[in-house]
């Protein structure tokens, strides 16, 4: 198959530049005056007032000009292609062994149900965010997709081909070229003794047929530039300690790009980084999707990052998908109480106002995946749990266009899942109050 399915080969793309800096600076200068212009400010305030009148005033942010036209500021409706990857009933159960004796006797004390039967599909050019608390099984899912962890059940289908039983370095090589993983921690990924150029070139050196030297150098240069490291020749000669945290993560991205992948599995690629570097990198990933037609499985515990980036969001809890659907639907009209709680505690820079909707802070932490609660696995922390939830697990059911949720209450009727704060008082006696509002 061709190396690049979509998008121009030129990493600069049709817009001339994929560098978020260039695009942005250029734009800023086009709109914002060098001299402060009181009229422009007044305009913004005026716009804000108009906007406020038309919408819910407590939630409106001013559309200041820099946002409205900023390239890649928001994932504009993106044309997505046919299905690229599908997971069917995927399961990863790790055996729990108590100690040496258990290991010798090959005895297990149950299983850690890290991934416990999930169905997902990603279409070409799409960004799917996998969101959940620590231990929910996000990384394990990502590792199965890049074939670093063996599933214990279910199927993985890539471009219509079942690759569940595809193993072995040689047989996996073509797949590994097309599917790349980006880790959370650039400090762990980069070897301090190797230059940036050597790191990016490394994957091109494996395999029987070596690529000619000039070809390798060209691809390294392209990858570095596409990742915003310019001039490439300057960065290629540097060592990791000569780079900032954001630049290091860009090197890791360049290392993934050099193989010209179609699917990038990004596991918390920005959580270690400062907010401003973070947004720069998210912008870069959006630009790369546009210029190279990349598809992302984006793993994060931060719903607001999923919100700015993803077309669709899947919310995981203890190895299961609790809700999946278009980002707007999942964030604006969540149909599972866990998603609702996550949305309500999601960071906001608006100072809390009296009378604003209360936040739902769940008590306790995600239980151990070795002891998944029976029934609905969220029931011990769910403020809406009732008898049925304790014994029977709710299936993922269609609650809207491409929107599915797993909750006995989601299927009741259109959009009528009670808002959890409102019913927090109705918690069964004897349970610690699971909801605290602030």
């Amino acid at each position, binding site marked *: 198959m061709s190396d690049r399915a979509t998008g121009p080969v030129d990493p600069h793309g049709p817009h001339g530049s994929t560098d*978020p*800096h260039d695009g*942005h600076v250029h734009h800023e200068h086009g709109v*914002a*005056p*060098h*001299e*402060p*212009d009181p009229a422009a*400010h007044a305009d913004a*305030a005026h716009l*804000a*007032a108009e906007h*406020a009148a038309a919408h*819910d*005033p407590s*939630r*409106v*942010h*001013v*559309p*200041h000009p820099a*946002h409205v036209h*900023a390239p*890649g*500021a*928001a*994932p504009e409706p993106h044309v997505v292609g046919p299905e690229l990857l599908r997971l069917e009933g995927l399961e990863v159960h790790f055996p729990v062994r108590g100690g040496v004796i258990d290991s010798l006797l090959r005895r297990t004390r149950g299983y850690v149900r890290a991934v416990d039967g999930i169905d997902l599909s990603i279409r070409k050019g799409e960004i799917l965010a996998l969101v959940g*608390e*620590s231990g929910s099984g996000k990384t394990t899912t990502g590792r199965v997709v890049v074939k670093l962890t063996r599933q214990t059940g279910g199927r993985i289908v890539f471009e219509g081909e079942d690759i569940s039983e595809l193993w072995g370095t040689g047989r996996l090589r073509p797949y590994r070229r097309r599917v790349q993983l980006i880790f959370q921690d650039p400090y762990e990924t980069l070897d301090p003794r190797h230059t940036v150029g050597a790191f990016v070139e490394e994957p091109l050196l494996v395999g029987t047929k070596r690529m000619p030297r000039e070809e390798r150098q060209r691809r390294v240069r392209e990858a570095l530039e596409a990742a915003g490291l310019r001039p490439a020749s300057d960065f290629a000669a540097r060592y990791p300690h000569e780079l*900032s945290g954001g630049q290091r993560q860009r090197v890791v991205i360049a290392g993934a790009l050099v193989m010209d992948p179609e699917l990038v599995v990004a596991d918390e690629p920005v959580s270690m980084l*400062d*907010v*401003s570097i973070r*947004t*720069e990198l*998210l*912008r870069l990933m*959006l630009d790369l999707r546009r210029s190279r037609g990349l598809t992302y499985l984006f793993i994060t515990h*931060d*719903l*607001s*990052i999923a*919100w*700015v980036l993803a077309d669709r969001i899947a919310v995981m809890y203890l190895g299961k998908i609790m809700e999946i659907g278009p980002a707007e639907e999942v*964030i604006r009209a969540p149909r599972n109480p866990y998603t609702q709680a*996550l949305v309500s*505690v*999601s*960071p*906001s*820079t*608006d*100072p*809390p106002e009296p009378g604003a909707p209360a*936040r739902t*802070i769940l008590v306790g*932490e995600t239980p151990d995946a070795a002891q998944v609660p029976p029934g609905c696995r969220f029931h011990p922390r769910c403020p809406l749990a009732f008898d049925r939830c304790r014994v029977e697990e709710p299936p993922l059911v269609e609650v809207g266009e491409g929107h599915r949720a797993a909750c006995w209450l989601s299927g009741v009727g259109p959009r009528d899942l009670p808002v959890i704060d409102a019913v927090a008082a109705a918690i069964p006696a004897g349970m610690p109050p699971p909801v*605290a509002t*602030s």
Partner: protein
Amino acid sequence: MTGVREPGAVSATRGRRQVPLPRLADPAAPLLVVEDLAVRFSLPSGSVKAVDGVSFRLDDGEALGIAGESGCGKTTTALSLVRLLPANGRIRSGSVKLFGIDLVPKTEKQLARYRWREISIVFQGAMNALNPVRRVGDQIAEPIEVRLGRSRDASRKRAAELLDLVGIPGQRASAYPHELSGGMRQRAMIAMALACDPAIVIGDEPTTALDVMVQAQILQLLERLRRELGLSLILITHDLSVIAETCDRVMVMYAGKVAEEGPVTRVFTAPRHPYTQKLLSSFPNIHADRRTLDVIPGQPPDLRNPPPGCRFAARCPFVMDVCREVVPPEVTFGDGVRVACHLYPGRDAAGPPPRVVGATRTCDAASSTDPAP
């Protein structure tokens, strides 16, 4: 909770806190006033002007957030307050007045009355620096023994009380750090900071690297402690939402200087400094009505050689000629917001109105732009 009494101290107390003030305290003085603080680090390649002329104040029971990009001097500012700078760091000038007592000229021995007992700190990343082979309860009891000269048993008992206060049940005191989740370890660090009933607790990135739900739980805990113990808080974080949720005032720092400081309700809804504006609009927010993702182009300056004028000039969309030559003076507005930017040139010439972020505040934002005398 019982107060820790110092023998022979005057028994004057303030606010809800039942702990006597230090003997030298001026009961009428504000809790903490930092003036013109400057800190340098010496390196073979030059001296790093990490904090350069920072002033702020913290009142009884108040929570102040310090925000800004990585490397802007937040931790350095905090460490200066408790005089725990790394060996190559030095306070060049300025004062740190606690109850009117300047801590900067104090000797190490004199400081013992104030550090931990009046101002304590939860260090950045401390929850990952707990000793892995010692029980958490013991690690909290030890500083109580050392700093307050209590018996081992009394310290153990106090440690259990403190763990309970932060929501760690008594029997978990015998756990080793790896047996506790991130959230629990952070709670333990907060318990440790509370050991001597301090007036001020500084949290340096207390929720960074925690899950959102756990983060919300920790913030809720800090809020409760503030109310119940009459604590004053300084929260340092690059996560603006943490400050929006918990603090009364916010100080935005850029490259070792204060860019903007004032009440959270003002600064976050009507930011005046271009850097604050950029910082807020680059923050991903699902509660906003649109998906926005602004970026601040470029990088902060090298603090060994900061630019002569405004330190933000190279990245500022509103930069003027004067910005590159003259350090912008701090101007205080009628609503209590202090800004250092040439767009607001002092009290005779009213600057342009602030960019309004929270549309509901459009009207009152426009009416308070005249700098106060």
